């Protein structure tokens, strides 16, 4: 099923996330990350969305995965960070 969240990142921007969530297995099947934040390079967000598919919907796992993608691909966020993104995703959970 599709779930959505809107989350104002502290000292940051408004993050809107939409998730195709597999409740039975507690896994993200698909995710769309939108909002008025900045990310460099911009294309990194599509990569982030791809890499987050099939990730378990659990705080530590999410934050770990997101942080490692940020490091690996030298992503710079402004108005958003790994904690904010994790929080926004978790808020989609029914």
């Amino acid at each position, binding site marked *: 099923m599709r779930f959505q969240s*809107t989350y104002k990142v502290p000292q940051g*921007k*408004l993050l*809107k996330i939409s998730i195709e969530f597999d409740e039975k297995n507690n896994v993200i099947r698909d995710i*769309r*990350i*939108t*909002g*008025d*934040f*900045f*990310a*460099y*390079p*911009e294309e990194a*967000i599509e990569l982030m969305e791809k890499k987050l598919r099939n990730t378990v919907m659990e705080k530590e796992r999410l934050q770990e995965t997101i942080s490692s993608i940020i490091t690996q691909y030298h992503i*710079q966020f*402004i*108005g958003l960070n790994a904690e904010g993104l994790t929080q926004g995703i978790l808020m989609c959970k029914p």
Partner: protein
Amino acid sequence: MKEQWRLLQTGSGTAFTNMAVDQAVLVVNSQGKVPPTVRFYGWAPPAISIGYFQSLVDEVDIGACERLGVNYVRRITGGGAVFHENELTYSIVVPESHPEVPKNILKSYARICGAVMKGLRQLGVESEYAPINDIISNGQKISGNAQTRKVETVLQHGTVLMDVDVDKMFSLLKVPNEKIKDKLIADVKQRVTSIRNILGKEIRFKEVAEAMKMGFEREFRIELIEGKLSKEEMALAKKFEKECFSIKDWNYRR
């Protein structure tokens, strides 16, 4: 002798042309074929631009845009949705390696906003930089800015509000909660201002452009020489407009 950059005064264009020209200048400048460039432009018809990461259908009332003849376009820069009507829009394109441009992205926002603030002061409007990407005057927003960096080149574009119609703006943008729409509009009216509001008189685009030219020259210790788009930039802009900015796939992609 001061370094010379190019000034482009391209007048008012459609949303699609405007965004295509900014990208074309970015690409051709990255190849070293044109100097660093400052461009001033307007929007005809009026238009909404949304940030790269925003969802068009979440942010924009497409039906209202069609009814009122307002264009809509996705930018290559992040940030929020903007209604462009009575404003001067600037863009600056400069290599990332240029000594006057801070490597740190936030610092470079502050620096480029400094040029806009110097321009505003020239018009008698005092303002300050409000991180991440706004300029405020008397605590109210008068300019919004957005930057991208591609092919080792910085592109920042931003608005300088000459006049603002918050009611019209909200008839075009979607609000998260219709029930509190009136309150939201009242809040935004408190938070947004314009040169007209501050000076209490109408101001012409040309005057704002003159002032902004001076602002950029002083901030970056350069001389702006009025020039034209190169043939290559024009051809590339046409291509970007046709293949990207005027296309549904691009504008609806998120």
